[in-house]
């Protein structure tokens, strides 16, 4: 004979709305819920960490880009300054090269000045269309016309002949203008005007 003693007869009354417990397998639902929360928190932490790292990298790159832009601007300004200097140097070189045929003439004009005369203004302009012609404009501080003669002789000694000369004698100033044409040699001067 076997009798189970594990069951207790209960005489309590008034039990309403008693619901049996849910099946144990459904515990997976809240467990899964809590696991999902844990994974979400973990992933959020990882993503937040990566976001901060990426933000730091981005800020670093931006700072580096700003520094490089500043360096580029400085380099460009230095380059522009250098280009200006180069342009000036080229112009100077061009002027020097272009003025070389006229240098003996300028030297002779300078040497022709006497003790009481001085050059107030001297301009030699070569015409681009007629390179053999040089427009001379000379202002001499003197009271004598003879000084002009001496100067013209020196110009003539350099194989230049004056055409269409005009001279004006003022108060202590002699203004002379003429077109000089080199005689006897073929003109090979540069095309750029020299002032």
């Amino acid at each position: 004979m076997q009798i189970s003693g594990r069951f207790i007869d209960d005489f309590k009354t008034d039990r309403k709305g008693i619901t049996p417990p849910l099946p144990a397998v459904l515990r997976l639902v809240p467990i899964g819920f809590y696991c999902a929360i844990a994974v979400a928190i973990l992933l959020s932490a990882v993503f937040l960490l990566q976001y901060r790292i990426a933000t730091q990298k981005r800020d670093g790159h931006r700072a580096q880009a700003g520094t490089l832009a500043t360096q580029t601007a400085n380099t460009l300004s230095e380059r522009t300054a250098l280009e200006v200097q180069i342009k000036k140097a080229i112009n100077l070189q061009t002027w020097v090269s272009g003025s070389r045929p006229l240098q003996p003439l300028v030297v002779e004009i300078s040497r022709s000045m006497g003790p009481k005369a001085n050059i107030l203004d001297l301009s030699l302009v070569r015409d681009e269309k007629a390179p053999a012609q040089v427009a001379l404009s000379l202002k001499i501080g003197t009271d004598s016309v003879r000084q002009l003669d001496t100067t013209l002789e020196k110009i003539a000694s350099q194989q230049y002949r004056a055409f269409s000369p005009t001279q004006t004698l003022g108060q202590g100033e002699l203004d002379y203008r003429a077109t000089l044409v080199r005689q006897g040699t073929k003109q090979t001067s540069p095309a750029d005007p020299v002032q």
Partner: protein
Amino acid sequence: MTSSDLKSVLNFSSFRSEPDDPSAAWKKRFPGKRSVLFGVGRSSLSWQAIGKGGGTEDVETVRADPKEILTSSAASIKDKTDDGWCLVSMNTRYTISLENNLSRRPGSEELLKTNARSVLGGRYERGKLYAMTHNPETNSSLLVSFEEDQTRRAESMFREFGFRVGRICCGTYVLLRHALSVTNTSKGSDKPLSTLYVVLCEGAVCALVQDQDRWLELRSRTDVYDADISAVGDILAPFHARLAPEVGITLICDTPLSGVEEVLSSHFPGRAITDLSKPGLLAGLLTQN
């Protein structure tokens, strides 16, 4: 689905039995909770605190009207519980009888709680609550009955003092079933047990004669003894002449009683006494099952 349903799922309370679910074991209904076992007699009330792990304290018994006792002691007793949950062992005004030819259709024991008339037939009495245990080898059955009004009054009395009754049972009947289950363990045994079961619970006495697999006679009385258990012998004495000489006595008490074996020995000289009693036995049975 309400937010409380979701909350109960997320805190796993939906997967535990409800505190008021009688089909679940006490330890599953109140895991890790303290409770109190009350023993209600005609003019006495006892209580025994049950700890979180199922451990029990000593039984305290007061001889007076239970309501008066609760009036003075309910607060201190309630401090021994979590949320006021308690078990109640009704030790008076019940009847345990030996019946024959009760219905044994499948589910009849559950049907007995809801429609006792269909199970008991002419034995049914209006306004009573029943429980039964069938002898699997014969057509006899143990039938315990309570006045429904009495259980309602007990519930309302404890509710009045702030207790929440989780279970009401007959302690004597629980102990008798436990003794039967412990001693009759093998099905179709060659040497079935013959013994006199003696159950003592808070003044109630129940004796059942088992001859091999047959239940022959049952006697049950309530409010038989107080501190002096000599009256127990008077109830049991008539059995001595009807028992075979080799038949022993199986004794079971809700908690060990001093002097009970001497009383039994005096009325049943020469018979072996097997004592199944141990401290906190009834509280352990009610909370473990």
